[in-house]
């Protein structure tokens, strides 16, 4: 009896900072999850290799395989011009990231307030919702000619296109976020003597936040793929431009490098949005954690 109580010291407070990270790492290494991920990636790379380089299946033999792509990517003297040792590679990434930052910033800055007001005020919704719903299904590529006519230069049309798609997603999700707030919170706030502005600040905004961040994660993905579409049509730099330019010049390795880089950078931005959301919504994260999620 006394042995059992002295044997295992019980942790009474949650670890913080770096020790929390180590604790989570240790715990996750005991589950199959990280191994499954590694296996999944390996399987995918192997299939790619098998199709393009191993078996050289008909038509796939024109596509660069993983060995060709990664040896080029890490080569000091890349055969087709793009590797991690070339400044142009980083220039393409930087230019695309800058455009995303601006487009996503505008889309969030306009979309979130617009969505909040549309969700909160029936009148604003009546004005704006039909227009939003009509514009939303129009594909980004259909906007290309108009955007080139409307905006001067290369930069503005590209950013406009990337902003547009992302704006619709953010606005709609934010509006649905306000809709999702339980009526009881509005009533409670009313009972407690809130002004409309108090309700907006203390109920509408925080209540919609989980939906807003779900929307922002989708919206940053949408921003990336509409940016690339825009860069393919107009532009002189950027990852989308790199992909289409390589294809035009018949150099397929940089094209694949561009695609992989795009995927990777897009993933990182999405993780950053998620982390920001979790940081802003401690209450939400804690409640979910207690449910074991």
């Amino acid at each position, binding site marked *: 009896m006394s042995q059992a109580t002295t044997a295992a010291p019980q942790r009474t407070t949650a670890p913080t900072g770096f020790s929390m990270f180590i604790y989570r790492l240790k715990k996750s290494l005991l589950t199959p999850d990280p191994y499954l991920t590694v296996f999944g990636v390996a399987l995918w790379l192997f299939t790619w290799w098998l199709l393009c380089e191993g078996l050289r299946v008909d038509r796939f033999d024109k596509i660069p395989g993983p060995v060709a792509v990664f040896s080029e990517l890490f080569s000091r003297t890349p055969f087709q011009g793009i590797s991690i040792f070339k400044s142009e590679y980083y220039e393409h990434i930087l230019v695309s990231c800058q455009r995303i930052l601006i487009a996503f910033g505008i889309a969030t800055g306009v979309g979130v307030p617009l969505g909040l007001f549309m969700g909160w005020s029936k009148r604003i919704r009546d004005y704006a919702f039909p227009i939003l719903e009509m514009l939303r299904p129009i594909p980004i590529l259909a906007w290309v000619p108009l955007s080139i006519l409307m905006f001067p230069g290369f930069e503005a049309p590209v950013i406009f296109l990337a902003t547009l798609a992302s704006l619709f997603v953010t606005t709609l999700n934010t509006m649905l976020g306000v809709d999702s707030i339980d009526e*009881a919170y509005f009533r*409670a706030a009313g009972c407690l003597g809130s002004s409309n502005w108090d309700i907006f600040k203390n109920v509408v905004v925080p209540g919609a936040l989980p939906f807003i961040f779900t929307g922002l994660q989708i919206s940053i993905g949408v921003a990336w793929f509409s940016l690339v579409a825009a860069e393919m049509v107009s532009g002189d730099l950027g990852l989308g431009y790199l992909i289409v330019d390589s294809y035009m010049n018949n150099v397929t390795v940089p094209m694949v490098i561009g695609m992989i880089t795009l995927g990777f950078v897009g993933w990182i931005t999405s993780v950053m949005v998620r982390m920001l959301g979790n940081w802003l919504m401690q209450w*939400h994260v804690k409640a979910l954690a207690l449910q074991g999620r």
Partner: protein
Amino acid sequence: MPNLNTRGALSIRNVTKIYDPEGVNVMAVKDCSMEIAAGEVCMIVGPSGCGKTTLLNAIAGFHSITSGEILLDGELLCGPGKPKADQGAERMVVFQHGALFPWKTLAQNVAYGPRVQGRSSKAEAMEKARDMLAEAGLGNVTEKYPGEVSSGMSRRAEIVRALINDPKVLLLDEPYRAMDALTKSIMHESLLETYDRTKVTIFFIIHDLEEAIFLGDKVHIVTTRPCQLKKTVEVNIPRPRSYQTQSSEEFRHLMEEVNEAVHEEAIKAFQAGERELA
């Protein structure tokens, strides 16, 4: 026991409420009158979906009434020419499913009322909130979010959030319905203790008859839809009451009386089989 409280007398006079969902008139409350004295614990018992919550919503100012009038301490809340009462902190609602803001800590939730009403600064409100939470036995969870504490604790915090505003009337819409019997009995004891301290008027919608008699000064039994006062049973068991009260002869007698009246309505409600109104 004499009750010295002079505020929080509610008069519900000939109130009728007709809902109009999808073009069909539904009479939720019909010519319903009730007098609730200042500082009285008044329990409302009736079949599910009979319109009790409609009545509460009218008092709180969430819904309008079709005719009749409701007065608080002689002042008109709603009536002819003013179908919907203003919402205000003198009538605090404790909701059926709980409505603490999940994005605020318990202390922030409690401090919210005084802060938005401009009655005290943020720091003062937070300090008072922490004190009141500690008084209610929640001193060590003041900085936790509602999602992190038990449902019993969060309900208790919700009552504290109501009381910090010094309300005249506390309107409770079956706030303990989903709780297990043990937690519920603790919640009831703490509510009674709160009442003994504040003597606030309590308007309490409840389903459990035993609990209604245990808690109340009066038990108002209402009819099935449309909601009307059917019978009022006075509970003259002295306070403070404890759980031994429930086994007394007097208690059983009252229980029979209430049960008979409610049962009749329950059967009618079941046979009508109407869908509950929100």
